[in-house]
């Protein structure tokens, strides 16, 4: 079982505000997800190297050639809020990235 603090920490990183009830709910659900994934620990991996990719490709690169993209109207077509040519979002108080 993960702690309520863990849930609050993950929620803060995801910028989600959770009510006390939702924290309870997430604590249970996240714990069950982690338990399910933890079953992988039972597999013997002593003979298997670290694996981040299984598709067998490598060095897939493209040449540095520019092409026009979507264009502004299409790019912002689904934006809930706009201000002229810019996308408008709620302010994030934590500054400095």
């Amino acid at each position, binding site marked *: 079982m993960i702690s309520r603090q863990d849930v609050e920490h993950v929620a803060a*990183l995801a910028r989600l505000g959770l009510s006390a009830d939702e924290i309870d709910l997430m604590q249970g659900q996240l714990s069950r997800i982690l338990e399910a994934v933890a079953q992988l620990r039972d597999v013997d991996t002593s003979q298997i190297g670290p694996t981040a990719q299984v598709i067998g*490709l490598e*060095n897939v*690169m493209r040449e540095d*050639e520019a092409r026009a*993209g979507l264009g502004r109207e299409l*790019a912002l077509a689904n934006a809930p809020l706009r201000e002229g040519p810019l996308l408008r979002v709620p302010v994030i108080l934590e500054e*400095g990235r």
Partner: protein
Amino acid sequence: MAVLTRYETVIGIEVHAQLRTSSKMFCSCPTGAAAGEPDEPNTRVCPVCLGLPGTLPVINRRAVELVILTGLALECHVETDAVRFERKNYFYPDLPKGYQISQYALPLCSGGRLSVPVPSEGTEVLVDITRAHLEEDTARLQHGGRDHSLVDFNRAGVPLMEIVTEPDLRSPAQARAYGEALRDILRHIGASDGDMETGSMRIEGNVSLRPMGAADLGTKVEVKNLNSFRSLERAMEFEVARHAEALGRGEQLTQETRGWDEGKGRTVSQRSKEEANDYRYFPEPDLPPLRPAAEWVARLRAGMPELPVARRTRYRQSLGLSAYDAAVLTADVELAEYFDAVVAEGVAPKPAANWVTGEFSRLLNARAADGLRASGVALRPAGLAELIAEVESGAVSTTTAKTVLARTFHAGESPRAIIEAEELGGLSDTRAIGEAVSEVLANHPAQVAEYRSGKTQIYGFLVGQVMRHTAGRADGRLVDEELRRQLDGEQ
């Protein structure tokens, strides 16, 4: 200052440099507006760099090359086996995907070094380079008001290189010297524009103080928002003084990020630093592994352009330039290339350096804000060489040459053609001067008589008249000779 001698300054530098590619890191969107066009917000975007679902990134080969080239220039180990891109997870409106594709555990380049001359201290410091890695830039945010921000995604996904040093710098002046030396290298190898003002190169300084002789590092502060090398030096000076004062009072410093306020000349706390593991890095599943071939790296090494240190040495030792001229020229690789081309036209290095770093640079800098660089100047090196030759041979005065340069700088006309067409050249033709003198003497009989009666102080007036008659172009020595010959001879 007594308190400063008790502590040692420790600075490490983190540089982010936009790579000079045509297209973005993981998609084909252009990295900049077409030449001469304004950069309209949210026009250089596509499903990949907007983080739309169902898209896949593809690595830009040139961006990888430029980081490898930088690594080689910084004497790094270039990894040819296990390079990895990872996801750096955080939520912020400048990051459309909710993560930045970056490198963490296995960067492209690591363990390098750079020898940095520090003229103001009369020393040279060896700076260890921790790593140089490849990532993507974020969108540009404008803080629109109290409750909202405005986002332009044109910058999102532009290839970005991060270069990190060990905490090897011991003074603000050294930090600045490192930044400038690195910029010169990036420009020489064509990896980045290295422009602090426009943000194509961004610097963060990590600074701490520790008691003299101590091995452990003190509490460090990271300073951002440095828009010039001068800001970097000033901000580091400010922090050193602030730390020394706090430590002197027995206070504990807080590990934090601070922003430099250029106007007020001080740093301001921004936020407490998040733990590194909050980014929850993990290998990027959308990119197959990258293993730069050893032959590829060797080819890049073989094609490495002349680096600033080598160029400065060549300028001083082979061409006999001053340390100052050598430094000014190598700070702008295009200026250095222009200078090399002028010298290749047969102009002596010293006058070539004087013109390129002097009047030519003045005219160039006047248009720098419009993005004009030496390679874009209409007057090509052969033209400037032609003009310098006219000055060196005495055909035109320096003042006249400056006027001609200003005229042809943006037009690109042949300076010699202008000089000939407008008869700007000096008059050294004895017959023409003789005629001018005769005419002046004929027009001023009273003054001539005065001179011949012994009142020789009138001579200066007659010289002035001849010069006026020839619009100041006559060679003074010839005028003198001819005037005396005619005045004294016809008596």
